């Protein structure tokens, strides 16, 4: 009974010049159940987390993260990126059950 992977939210920076190092910020709604929490009737809530995040730019992996239950609910993940040219970011979140959520955004470099 895994929670559905929520809607990813990504906003790429604008007005980026070639050579700029920008911060890519991502967020996805997800409870990140630790597996140690009990519900109101005292039963353990089974573990259900997003365990992998992958970011690619024009098909090339630029950043990946392995998540553990110590990552907060609705995981916020941000990383630096050196902008060289306009291209497409693809972000993928994968939960314990192997379900994926994907989001694509174009980074415009002027």
């Amino acid at each position, binding site marked *: 009974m895994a929670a559905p992977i929520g809607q990813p939210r990504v906003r790429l920076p604008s007005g980026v010049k070639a050579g700029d190092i920008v911060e890519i910020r991502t967020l996805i709604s997800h409870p990140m159940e630790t597996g140690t929490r009990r519900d109101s009737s005292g039963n353990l809530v089974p573990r259900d987390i997003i365990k992998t995040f992958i970011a690619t730019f024009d098909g090339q992996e630029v950043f990946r993260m392995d998540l553990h239950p110590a*990552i907060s609910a609705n995981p916020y993940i941000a990383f630096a990126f*050196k902008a060289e040219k306009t291209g497409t970011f693809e972000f993928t979140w994968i939960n314990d059950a192997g379900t994926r959520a994907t989001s694509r955004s174009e980074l415009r470099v002027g």
Partner: protein
Amino acid sequence: MNRTVALSRRTALFGTAGAVVAITLAPKPASASLQPATEAAIKKLIGDKKLNEGRVTLRLPPIAENGNTIPLTVVVESPMTAGDHVKTVHVFADRNPTPDVASFHLTPAMGRAEVSTRIRLGQTQDVVAIAEMSDGSLFIGRQEVKVTIGGCGG
């Protein structure tokens, strides 16, 4: 969060206890040893290799009122070129029920070795980050956070 009233009263009690402990804790040297569970988690990921001090900075609030969502940024000094870059950064919470927090896999395309997320801490403790460089060397940094109300499921 959708916790019960009974739980929030209990976490409030734990929070008070945590605050008292925090005041009585003396500052630890950077070389202070880690909990056995943290040592085991580190060994599992990187083996017995030598850990050098420096180059790794953890940005965390010194005091966190809510242990459920604490902003963390890790910065590693590195030129991030093809020949000299940070490959992986492992983060551990020394006194969480499970010390593993996250592993970040970096590439030279990032230009700068900087990553951010939000973490859960069950109590006042040190957060540790270990960076694996492209030449195989390892660097460790740590930062204490005083937690007044713990995360990790109350």
